[in-house]
């Protein structure tokens, strides 16, 4: 657990980068610091490992004041992923990853073996081990940066915009992999980004900072989207926050069965859109049955996004809105067709969800009420 206790930082030139920050990053969770450029995110992060000394306040890790520890020792126990990668250009990939283990006195064989193991963990080919960073793509460099921070298996990690220097597609992929990795490793992570989507995707808890280094709101992502505390946070979270909040509402939707045609066979008696599947009943796309007589080929198909069964309302809504037939395709865990849903059904489910939430809130208030008056909804099952 990392705790900021009334921490402030004013630089020598008078800039106040962080203003009276109190924040707890719980053990085993990802706490994201998000905010516009210059709001003091990097400064906050670097005060944890004492690369920057707070002007006032203190920071503890598992109860120990970091100010009482030797800086170099402290840093070797904290994984750090730097904005822009910051790999050592003159060291090979494996030597980069082995940096902290070697500092901790591991013998070279063990440190390099660990480096190769980590290459695999972050999804890189072991053949890259002996290359220099300049010979890697941006995405590969970022992965090496993460591997380097993980090398000595530190319980605490500080990550400063680790995925910002790559294109959106690679970033998305890195974020997904990072989430899977964290599910296994359960590190205590302080993660900095200026990208609210990244914050919402990765954070167990999101702390929004405003310029001047003041904390605006700390909340789990769903709560941040649902109830931003003020206009600044609402504006920062974005106009489509309502839609994005659906990403946190589980869809428990009944699905319709859907007429399908297997690829390579002709469509029998259909007017309008028909769903094409492969022999395993995995959806391939839609075809306009009236216009394409004869065996179905994959070139003619129009796709839409697929919603996993039991996924979020957002995924279900997106699937139905992106489907040319207006029927969103729902798939099971094996990627096989489970059925379809329409946008109307998703919205009805949402309305139902809202009503439930309102009831739950009302009953919570009623239960907490000292007079003991129970409302009708609280009595309902």
């Amino acid at each position, binding site marked *: 657990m990392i705790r900021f206790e009334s921490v402030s930082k004013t630089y020598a030139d008078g800039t106040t980068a962080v203003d009276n920050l109190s924040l707890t990053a719980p053990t085993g969770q990802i706490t994201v610091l998000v905010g516009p450029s210059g709001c003091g995110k990097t400064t906050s992060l670097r005060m944890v490992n004492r690369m920057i000394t707070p002007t006032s306040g203190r920071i503890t890790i598992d109860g120990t004041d970091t100010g009482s520890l030797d800086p170099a020792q402290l840093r070797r126990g904290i994984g750090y992923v730097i904005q822009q990668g*910051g790999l050592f*250009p003159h060291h090979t990939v494996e030597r980069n990853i082995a940096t902290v283990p070697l500092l901790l006195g591991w013998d070279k064989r063990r440190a390099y073996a660990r480096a190769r193991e980590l290459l695999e963990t972050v999804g890189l080919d072991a053949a890259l081990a002996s290359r220099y960073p300049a010979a890697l793509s941006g995405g590969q460099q970022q992965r090496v940066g993460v591997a380097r921070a993980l090398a000595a298996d530190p319980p605490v990690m500080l990550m400063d915009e680790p995925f910002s220097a790559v294109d959106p597609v690679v970033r998305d992929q890195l974020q997904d992999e990072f989430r899977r990795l964290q599910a296994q490793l359960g590190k205590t992570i302080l993660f900095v980004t200026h990208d609210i989507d990244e914050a919402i995707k990765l954070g167990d808890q999101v702390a929004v900072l405003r310029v001047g280094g003041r904390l605006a709101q700390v909340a789990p992502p769903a709560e941040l989207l649902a109830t931003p505390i003020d206009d600044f946070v609402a504006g920062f979270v974005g106009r489509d926050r309502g839609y994005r909040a659906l990403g946190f509402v589980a869809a428990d939707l009944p699905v319709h069965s859907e007429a399908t045609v297997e690829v390579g066979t002709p469509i029998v008696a259909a007017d309008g859109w028909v769903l094409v599947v492969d022999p395993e009943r995995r959806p391939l796309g839609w075809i306009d049955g009236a216009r394409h007589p004869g065996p179905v080929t994959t070139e003619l198909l129009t796709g839409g996004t697929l919603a996993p069964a039991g996924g979020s309302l957002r995924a279900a809504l997106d699937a139905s809105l992106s489907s040319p037939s207006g029927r969103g395709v729902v798939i099971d865990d094996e990627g096989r067709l489970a059925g379809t849903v329409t946008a109307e059904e998703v919205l009805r489910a949402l309305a139902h969800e809202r009503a439930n939430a309102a009831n739950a809130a009302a009953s919570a208030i009623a239960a907490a009420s000292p007079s003991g008056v129970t409302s009708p909804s609280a009595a309902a099952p």
Partner: protein
Amino acid sequence: MTWALDHAGQIADLAWRHVLLAGIPLLLGLVLAIPLGWLAHRVPVLAPVMVVGTGLLYTIPSLALFILMPLMLGTRILDPVNVVVAMTIYTVALLVRTVVDGLRSVPGDVDAAATAMGLGALRRLWQVQLPLAVPVIAAGMRVAAVSNVSIVSIASLIGVAQLGDLLTDGYNRNIPAELITGILATLLLALVFDRAVVGVERLLTPWRAS
């Protein structure tokens, strides 16, 4: 040509002395300039004073410095140590700025990463900053190397033997072949020094080959 062949042994002897008188100060100067440059880099208020201060040393006329050395060091007039010390001063004068520039050329995020990994100041210098400063320092070393080879020739005037003797002797006794041999040998030596620095730079920067 025949003059050079007839005196090959003497030329080789003078060339070797020249190599030592120019080369040893080059290495000593680098060894001294690194901590001075590092200090200037770490303590920014010191940087202008140190860079300008050491740079000014270069403007002292070499003959004056050679003559002053015995007075300051208590050495004998003809002692080659006078030349070595004087040339080391010139090398430091050129290289302090170079080392500061080299350390400044290290990308900030790389340096910050080294700190964040838990490398102390000395490890950072040795493992990260100096290796990355090699290209800039090597460029300064090439200037210093050629400059040393050239300035050392003046030492003939205070009686310390090296290739410069061919110039003074050739001039005094009016032997053009000796004079030309001296010039060519000095040029060739400067070229060899320059190539040697480039070779060492390549060896130290395998990561830049691509």
